[in-house]
């Protein structure tokens, strides 16, 4: 049950933070559902995009932060370009995702978080991404060894395909960038 005004005041600070960082006004949403209508990932969400907006409006911000939807959103911005109220829905969800990370809510969609982290540590180490090693690493972590393995020969057909990770030269600078980000806060 939603209890007003408790729910509103409980979520007020977090909502204000999300609105400030995303630059969006959540109260402008009139629940038309257009964002949801063409979201390609919504079928896998626990709450569809318009419901995320509603939960924020009624102060149930924690539900949004802990939602699978916030993690699964592709940030494809389809919803944002179609919202009749010109709300950057993707931006709101994106911000919720960042706030959730900072709040240490790490239980949902662990695989996805792992993958994103793996990608970035790959970049941190090499400066560039190496798709094959990422795939293998990810499959090991998720114990799903056959995931996409059939694609590998298809990729190997391509000319100039690098078996070994490419590396950039100025890796010191790369590290500094990551250090700077960590210093900037929340890491």
């Amino acid at each position: 049950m939603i209890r007003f005004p408790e729910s509103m005041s409980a979520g007020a600070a977090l909502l204000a933070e999300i609105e400030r960082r995303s630059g969006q006004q959540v109260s402008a949403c009139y629940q038309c559902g257009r964002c949801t209508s063409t979201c390609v990932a919504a079928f896998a969400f626990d709450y569809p995009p318009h419901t995320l907006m509603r939960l924020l409006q009624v102060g149930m911000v924690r539900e949004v932060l802990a939602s699978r939807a916030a993690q699964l959103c592709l940030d494809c911005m389809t919803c944002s370009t179609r919202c009749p109220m010109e709300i950057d829905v993707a931006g709101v969800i994106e911000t919720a995702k960042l706030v959730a990370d900072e709040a240490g809510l790490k239980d949902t969609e662990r695989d996805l978080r792992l993958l994103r982290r793996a990608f970035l540590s790959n970049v941190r180490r090499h400066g560039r991404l190496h798709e094959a090693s990422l795939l293998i690493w990810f499959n090991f972590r998720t114990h799903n060894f056959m995931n996409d393995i059939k694609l590998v020969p298809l990729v190997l057909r391509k000319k100039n395909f690098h078996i070994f990770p490419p590396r950039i030269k100025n890796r010191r600078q790369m590290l500094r960038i990551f250090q700077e980000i960590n210093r900037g806060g929340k890491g």
Partner: protein
Amino acid sequence: MSVYSYFPGCSLKSGATEYDRSFRLVADCFGIGLDELEDWNCCGASPAPHHWGGDLGILLPARNLHIAGASHDGIVAPCAGCFNRLKYAQHELSRNDDLRRRTGQALGQPVHYQTDVLNLVQLLNREIDPEDLARRARGRLSGMTLGTYYGCVLVRPPQIVRYDDPANPVKMEPLLKAAGATIPYFPFKTECCGSYMGLARKEIVLRASRRIIEVALECGVDALVTVCPLCYQNLDLRQRQINDVYGTDYHLPVLYLTQALGLALGFSPEELGIEAHAVNRPPSAL
């Protein structure tokens, strides 16, 4: 001759080498100089902006902008994702003093970020005169019906990428038409293909990409044309997975724009790397 800083990005050096190759071939034909960016790094793709407060998604591409400096006529990023990240970084750097300062700190010197950032379609629109292209096209595309697939990040968010109509982009069309192809109205040209979920949440990608292929076939296209390696990967490399899951029997070729133009200019499918695609059965008219 115009010379551009060329930012290939990770994809064009790994899973999408044929994109890199066909781009160089086409660029050569029209005297477009490409100077690969020295020691470029990954732009951060999708994960970076989702982590560590989001700023990583700006600092990574910022380094590339900085390296590009002002030396050329602009920096071109064929990968739609890279293009988006570069534009985004540029936008944020121009309005956020603190971010600019921090970026400078990480780079060890004040960041240079004002370089003109172009995507591949923009570059070709700028450098290729459609009439010239029509004269040189050897008819390999004529009679072919192509679906232009723009995807998400090439046109969105419109206020940042400032490129084409976000709801109905049309900038690829003049080039392909000049090359002899027929372009029907394709209503799914900006529907998302499922993005980077292929590894972790495959069902999202397969469902989204299947829709795109289904509608494309409904529109009678012989092949889809894209400028994004991720879109390519979801639509072509995973087409067999789609067939497995949905019991369909799709064989819809997916070409990079530069491959399609390359065909018109007389290069062979092998030269353009089309034969290495998952759906490599050439469209009937090839």
